[in-house]
């Protein structure tokens, strides 16, 4: 067993254990931190596959952006130190059953199927190649989806401002209705 194999299994175990903890812990801030470690583990798997650009994007956007956004929203909406309510047993049972059955079905299908593709001349996923194809307008270029995604991001930006900056209706002041915390 080579070092790269060992690193792969370590990364995989790290990712999956943190993912399980992220959906099972009852402290929401810990869930966010476990999610952060899961995303770092996935970025490590991208590094292991030598897709460095995707790994960098994963770290910048997910670890640096979305997780910080989630942590800020936790601070804005949760009382400190409050545990999440425990889900009912039947819901946990059926969710676990659904997840396990779906997983078993998927893996059965995957292991029965053999993937055949084009194994000739691997293309180097370097930043130069990615840039040329992403902004290319010829066959296989991704210039149009690139522009559409930029319009989507603009729409999301405007939508966030419109939603979050809406004036609070009269009689629903933000400060006067803070819930009294029981001692």
């Amino acid at each position, binding site marked *: 067993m080579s070092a790269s*194999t060992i690193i792969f299994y370590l990364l*995989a175990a790290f*990712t*999956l254990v943190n993912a399980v903890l*992220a*959906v099972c812990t009852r402290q*929401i801030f810990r*869930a*966010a931190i476990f*999610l952060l470690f*899961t*995303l770092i583990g*996935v970025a490590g*798997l*991208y590094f292991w*596959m030598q*897709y460095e650009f*995707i790994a960098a*994007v994963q770290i910048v956007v*997910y670890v640096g*952006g*979305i997780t910080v*956004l*989630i942590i800020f*929203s936790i601070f*804005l*909406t*949760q009382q400190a130190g409050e545990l999440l*309510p425990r889900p009912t047993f039947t*819901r946990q049972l*059926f*969710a*676990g059953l*659904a*997840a396990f059955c779906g*997983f078993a079905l*998927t*893996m059965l299908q*995957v292991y029965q199927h053999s*993937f*055949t*593709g*084009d194994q000739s001349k*691997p*293309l180097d*996923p370097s930043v130069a190649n*990615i840039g040329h*194809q*992403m902004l290319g307008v010829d066959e296989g270029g991704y210039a149009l989806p690139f522009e559409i*995604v930029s319009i*989507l991001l603009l729409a*999301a*930006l405007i*939508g*966030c401002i419109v*939603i*979050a900056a809406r004036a*609070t209706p009269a009689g629903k002041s*933000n400060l006067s*209705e803070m819930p009294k915390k029981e001692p």
Partner: protein
Amino acid sequence: MTSEPGLYHFLFISAALFFIGVFGFFTRRNLITMLMSIELILNSVNLNFIAFNKYVWPGKMDGLFFTLFVIAIAAAEAAVAIAIIINLYRSHRSIDVEIAEELKF
């Protein structure tokens, strides 16, 4: 399982990550933790795209571009979702989906 890691190992990881996210989405009743489960699901899809791109079609980069676009759309989705969550918290003082059951107030 001592062979060199290949496509099936990555498919195992991404399927496990996907169904962990599905489990979290079913059990959680807090909107932020449900959003975290959605992020897990999107990450498993990205891992799948990259693994297929590396092991099945190494001569193309389409999976890589799909991953980039999924990441961009996930960022936009998370931003809009958190704006909605904070607005819901302002009006209902809670972000539990059981409490937010009417669409207008």
